């Protein structure tokens, strides 16, 4: 069972549907009580960094999530904004992130040629393997693998060993990251048909 943390950021329907398609049970909750006994967590998210961090605080989830991630070490997957929340900070906002993976979230704007590369980075793109991870099992050969992205900010790990996939869009960024039990995917697996299903299956098997 995967517990999806609902902090009011974006649509969870597609995520729930994809897990149902691959035969994995999910439970959506916005309550600390719902998160308390979770053995696997998913942080979704579309929207702004500070809004998400504020909501997590307001819903009384921050210390609980820290306990689940750092003490109980349950597997946690952050998707899109949910991955950016795993980092220390974001140029999109001023609030600190969860800081579970030493990394920063940076803006594409000012760093890439925006005449050539429009922001947000939106559409299908390929990934390159940077490090082994159970999240990306079965992806070989990588030439065939592609994911759907929509984001204006990207993640850069302080330690390259935490980067498991890289993607190039004007620059090379970390499109999937891992630090022990903490995983993040910048793209939307729930919108990336078979490739997304494979990633969700891998997470469900952890």
């Amino acid at each position, binding site marked *: 069972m995967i517990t999806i943390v609902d902090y009011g950021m974006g*649509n969870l*329907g*597609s995520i729930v*549907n*994809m897990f149902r*398609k691959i035969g994995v049970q999910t439970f959506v909750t916005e309550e600390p009580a719902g998160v308390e006994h979770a053995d696997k967590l998913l942080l979704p998210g579309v929207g702004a960094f500070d809004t998400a961090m504020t909501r997590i605080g307001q819903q009384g989830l921050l210390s609980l999530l820290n306990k689940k991630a750092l003490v109980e070490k349950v597997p946690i997957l952050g998707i899109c904004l949910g991955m950016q929340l795993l980092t220390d900070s974001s140029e999109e906002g001023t609030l600190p992130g969860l800081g579970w993976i030493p990394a920063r979230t940076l803006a594409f704007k000012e760093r890439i040629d925006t*005449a050539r590369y*429009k922001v*947000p980075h*939106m*559409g*299908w*793109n*390929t990934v390159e393997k940077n490090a082994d991870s159970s999240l990306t099992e079965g992806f070989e050969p990588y030439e065939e693998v*592609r994911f*759907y992205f*929509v984001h204006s900010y990207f993640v850069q790990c302080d330690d390259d060993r935490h980067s498991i996939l890289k993607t*190039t*869009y004007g620059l090379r960024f970390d499109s999937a990251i891992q630090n022990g039990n903490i995983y993040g995917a910048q793209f939307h697996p*729930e*919108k*990336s*048909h*078979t490739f*997304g*299903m494979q990633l969700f299956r891998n997470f469900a098997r952890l």
Partner: protein
Amino acid sequence: MLRTRVIPCLLLNDESLVKTVKFGAYTYIGDPVNTVRIFNELEVDELVFLDITASRQSRGPNFKVLEDIANECFMPLAYGGGICDIEDVGRIFGIGFEKVVINSHAVQDPGFIRRVADKFGSQSVIGSIDARKNLFGRYEVFTHGGTKKASGNPLEWAQELERLGAGELLLTSMDRDGTWAGFDIKLTASVTSKVQVPVIANGGAGTVRHIGDVVGRGGASAVAVGSLVVFQGKGLGVLVNFPDKKELEEVLPR
């Protein structure tokens, strides 16, 4: 690098899937949900759904159908048809669609595009232009499923939609719709050369070569296909299909 998107553009008549020729006579294709399941298997890039009778019948989106579609779809989705209300836009995104396509209501109330873009981001708004050549060979803009003529020409309107905050444009040649005769390269190039936002060329796809042409010569960022992916061939029966990836790669610049 990003791949050029090839997007099945599927037409809804309320609850059924249909396909038109030159915005006129339509053929019943089938049930949208069954069709979506096939496109899932075919791993298409993205799907656009347009309810072609909603504006004409002053009807809003059929949320039940959109929900059924989103529940089966594991790819990016866009919806257009009868959207005149910002709350409807929020509801469509809540269902699991990523983008809305706005045509008729943008002509009636251009500020609507701005409001949707401000609230949900430009990347979620596709401004749609239906264009037809008049007797003098000049392009005109139409709304309400091609039944009402708007003022101005496609280029002016495209620039205005971009200025208002549309993140993408869907440019449809009404003359080529359902004809299998190839895209209107001239129309497409006249717009793509003057706007910065991605333009999805629509209307006329009959072969993979046509797709390559409108990208290569027309400057389209993405391509919408209709008849090509719902019929076995011109004048033949319904067959949901998608061009072979290898063939597409050969004609598309990477």
